């Protein structure tokens, strides 16, 4: 076993990996990382490290895993659910130095980027080829693609173009044990489990993405944006229903109410029609002839619903002017209120009117203003609850109101998050949406990746648990296990840590086909031997302080998998440094089947006391 590493003891090790200047220990500096875009949750990390490469990231994670220290990934820190909230006893791994666009392949229409690359810079780099990266969160100027992957971020144009999950085809990740591996093959056509799909939206709990293969979409031939002003939200809502009912799928349908218009006006002087109770932004894109026909149709539908004014923009400058108001709306609310909560909930489109009405009455009852900005096309609401944080009573009332809004969403058959994620902020609402079995099943997935519960612990799930722990006093064996549908599964945890060099104090194991190992990605199938290994890491080994293993574990092992995946499961994997191509992957995955079982680990994993 390794020596018990204290957090301070990690400093020289981390410095050896990433360079001393990229390990942050100064108390003032550390505090600048204490929160993300949701400032109401704060925790000063014990250490911050900014790796420059995937290999450094892997080495850092491996070090944390060996030392039993929790770690949290952070992109640009714009998350709105506290997903990147650090751990006071842990390491914050910041991806913002990993921001190379490794490749733009205009023929295959894809890009390979590092996770710290901002969303917008992918589109900028693709623009010369007539391509763009479709998911466009309002925060796209700064949010990182890695953060987008973790949150499955969407944006105004997701109505037509889809969310992050629809545009990512391959991921190089560092598993929570510090192993570099690829998920997905970069083509978007995956056979076997869609592990990319599992990783996207996992909010940093299943590992750290270090390279991302994204699809690029051809820039539409024509884009036309309409801005329609309405006296009331209801009238605007009617227009939305009309458009959708007519079978038109605009690229975006966004709505803002009077209060958010006021804020946007104060921030960017967007010049929206004066006195409007609501504005609707409808963007149509596609082949010119199609767009032209649709514009006429949308225009008349908007008029029919009672628009008081319609503005059209078919050139980039005027379009940008219309969008400026919408894209700045969240931050702009800072101009009209000392503090605010950005809520994120989804309701069926048909319930929009009713839910907005309920929000208005909740707001009136609480005496707290709520501004509404939302993706009307897919019913994704962003109520902005305005309050003065100088008054603790008001802050509390705002919190209560914001919770009541979520309850309303659930009541109408919606969801507690559309695109901002659960993080720490909404984990307590998870039991309102999912029953205990659902939550436990999700834990199974999580534990398959992170049996030691070190990777962004405390997020997403209401009660942080170590894997293998009793889910609840009333519960025994997980039903899936009891029914023989799930079994022990170790590959993720037991596989070798593939490190770029021996910079890490622990010996680094390159297992299986050494050629592959040396290139950083583990050979597919290398976990075969691991699966046969006894589950010695399962119990107390991982628990700080040697907490004895819980009695009612689903077995003694930390990780499980759902029946169906062979123990020598195949992780589509391709060598690092080469951008993934279908050809490569094919070879890698198929030759892997012939890879002989690897010898056991040449070294011992650290054990708990």
């Amino acid at each position, binding site marked *: 076993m390794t020596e018990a590493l204290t957090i301070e003891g990690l400093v020289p090790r981390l410095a050896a990996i990433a360079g001393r200047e990229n390990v942050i220990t100064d108390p*003032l500096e550390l505090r600048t990382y204490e929160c*993300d875009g949701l400032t109401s949750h704060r925790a000063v990390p014990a250490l911050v490290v900014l790796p420059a490469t995937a290999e450094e990231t892997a080495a850092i994670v491996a070090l944390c895993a060996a030392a039993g220290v929790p770690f949290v990934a952070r992109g640009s820190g714009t998350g709105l659910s506290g997903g990147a909230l650090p751990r006071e006893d842990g390491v914050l791994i910041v991806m913002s130095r990993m921001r190379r666009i490794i490749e733009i392949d205009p023929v295959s229409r894809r890009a390979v980027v590092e996770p710290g690359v901002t969303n917008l810079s992918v589109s900028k780099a693709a623009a010369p080829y007539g391509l763009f990266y479709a998911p466009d969160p309002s925060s796209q100027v700064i949010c990182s693609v890695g953060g987008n992957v973790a949150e499955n971020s969407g944006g105004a144009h997701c109505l037509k173009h889809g969310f992050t999950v629809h545009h990512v085809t391959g991921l190089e990740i560092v598993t929570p044990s510090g192993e570099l591996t690829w998920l997905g093959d970069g083509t978007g056509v995956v056979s076997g489990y869609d592990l990319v799909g599992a990783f996207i939206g996992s909010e940093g709990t299943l590992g750290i993405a270090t390279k991302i293969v994204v699809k690029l979409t051809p820039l539409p031939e024509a884009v036309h944006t309409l801005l329609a002003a309405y006296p009331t939200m209801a009238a605007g809502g009617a227009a939305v229903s009309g458009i959708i009912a007519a079978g038109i799928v605009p690229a975006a349908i966004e709505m803002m109410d009077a209060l958010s218009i006021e804020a946007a006006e104060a921030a960017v002087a967007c010049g929206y029609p004066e006195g409007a109770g609501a504005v609707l932004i409808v963007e149509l894109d596609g082949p010119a002839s199609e767009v032209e026909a649709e514009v006429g149709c949308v225009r008349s539908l908007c008029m029919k619903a009672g628009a008081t004014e319609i503005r059209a923009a078919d050139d980039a400058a005027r379009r940008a002017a219309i969008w400026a108001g919408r894209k700045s709306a*969240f931050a702009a609310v800072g*101009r009209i209120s000392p503090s605010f909560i950005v809520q994120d909930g989804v309701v069926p489109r048909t319930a929009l009117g009713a839910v907005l009405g309920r929000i208005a009455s909740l707001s009136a009852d609480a005496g707290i203003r709520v501004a509404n900005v939302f993706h009307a096309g897919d019913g994704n609401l962003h109520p902005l609850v305005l309050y003065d944080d100088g008054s603790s009573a008001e802050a509390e009332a705002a919190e209560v109101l914001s919770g009541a809004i979520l309850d309303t969403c659930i009541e109408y058959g919606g969801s507690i998050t559309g695109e901002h994620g659960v993080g720490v902020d909404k984990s307590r609402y998870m039991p309102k949406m999912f029953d205990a079995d659902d939550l436990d099943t999700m834990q199974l997935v999580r534990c398959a990746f992170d049996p030691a519960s070190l990777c962004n612990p405390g997020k997403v799930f209401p009660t942080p648990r170590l894997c293998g722990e009793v889910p609840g006093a009333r519960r025994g064996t997980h039903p899936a296990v009891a029914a023989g549908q799930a079994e022990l599964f170790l590959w993720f945890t037991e596989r070798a840590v593939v490190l770029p060099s021996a910079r890490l104090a622990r010996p680094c194991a390159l297992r299986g086909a050494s050629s592959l190992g040396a290139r950083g990605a583990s050979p597919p199938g290398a976990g075969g031997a691991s699966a046969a290994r006894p589950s010695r890491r399962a119990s107390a080994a991982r628990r700080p302080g040697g907490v004895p293993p819980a009695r009612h574990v689903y077995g003694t092992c930390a990780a499980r998998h759902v029946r169906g995946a062979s123990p020598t499961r195949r992780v589509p994997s391709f060598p690092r440094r080469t951008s993934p191509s279908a050809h490569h992957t094919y070879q890698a995955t198929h030759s892997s089947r012939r890879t002989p079982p690897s010898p056991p680990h040449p070294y011992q994993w650290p054990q708990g006391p």
Partner: protein
Amino acid sequence: MSDEHDQLRSVIKDCVHCGFCLPACPTYQLWGEEMDSPRGRIYLANQVLDGAELTAAAAEHFDRCLGCMACMTACPSGVQYDQVIEAARVWTEEARSGEPVPGTGPRDAGPARGAEAEDGGLAGVDGAEGPSARAGGTTDRSISPKGGADVKRRLRDRAVRAAIFSVFPYPRRLRALTGPLRAAQRTGLDRRLARGTLPDRVSPALGAALRLAPPRPREAARGVLPERVAARGPRRAVVGMLTGCVQSVFFPQVNAATARVLAAEGCDVIIPRGQGCCGALSLHSGRAEEAARFARRTIAQFERAGVDAVVVNSAGCGSAMKEYERLLAGLPEPDPTFALAGQEESVSWVARAGALSGKVRDLAEFLAELGPAAPRHPLPVTAAYHDACHLAHAQRITRQPRELLSAIPSLRVVELPDAGMCCGSAGVYNLLQPGAARELGRRKADAVLATGARLVISANPGCTLQITAELGRRGESIAAVHTAEILDASIRGLPAGSLGVR
């Protein structure tokens, strides 16, 4: 004192932590660290306000801020970052000289730094000794946790700072210094030196200075500008003109062009004699009291001139002069040494500052307001317009210069990619943080070259120095001129060659 803190707190509270300013920030672009972003610096400042001791590491992040104000343009929440960084610079200066950091006492209690005669001479050399000698006696309040404090280096840094501030704001001293630099240029010694590492080993700032020193002005400086230049044609306005320190020493031709353009557009131009520094360099470096002294002098001078507007052709100076009121409001009123004869006692410096700031106009801003009178002649050349930060971000002037330029027949103006990004000049930043400045200069030069332009137009002497130096280093022969020069050439019907276009 606490009023000031309350004001600062409320500025900081406007920050909603959205991060929209991060991509606009040159230092975040360079290093990707939160503490080197506007959002992070605001966070650092807030901690100091809350009573945390300023650590060396935190001070370094304030030092690294270029003060380009790109973050203010980017911020949807309207955070007045300029106020944050100004306060932070004062704290770092104070921490370094062992004086109180906020909350620990009135900051103006310290010795009147640099109180030496404002009237020049080369006494600045002692100025260099003052603060650094004091620094030797003070304890470093904290050891940089990142790699430990290199106290020696920090001493040298301080000496460099002291030297800079005892030379740059004093045109006569600056001019005296340019003699040796020019001599070095004539003999080619500078290039040999700049190529080698010797100057950098002596001081990175010296290395940077050598690399930046501009060649002799294209047009021999035609002595001193007259005190008054009469309007051509009917008089439309009476304006004062600031000559600036760096501008007047390194770019006298820009001042001459400015005066000619203003006169051609029907302005009587008053150029007060013996103008000193406007205080911009000091203000932007946390030397508030020094800046205030310069400001009071400048205010008094232009009050005496009795003009409708004060036209400034150096973006950094213009932005500082528009800030005079806030600068003086934060400081106690001095005894009325500077009061004008006949000036009522009751008029406070703050009020006088407000009145003057109201008259300050950037040259492009003023000309756009005034509207053209003189006919323009064609100038067939492709030029890239560079937004000086203190014009585009600090004064939000981007439209006017473009309008003026696009009104020149045959002139093709192209935009630079990533136009809002600082070139790294930023006052004396390129002397104090030469590494970062050079990298930003490199990026800006790349952007210029990517456009294929033969000419770069910038409205700030610092930018011109920085961009020319970088282009020169690459052996590129792209000329850099001020908006005033290009307007002057067009009005006078001079060929593009007169601007150094090859």
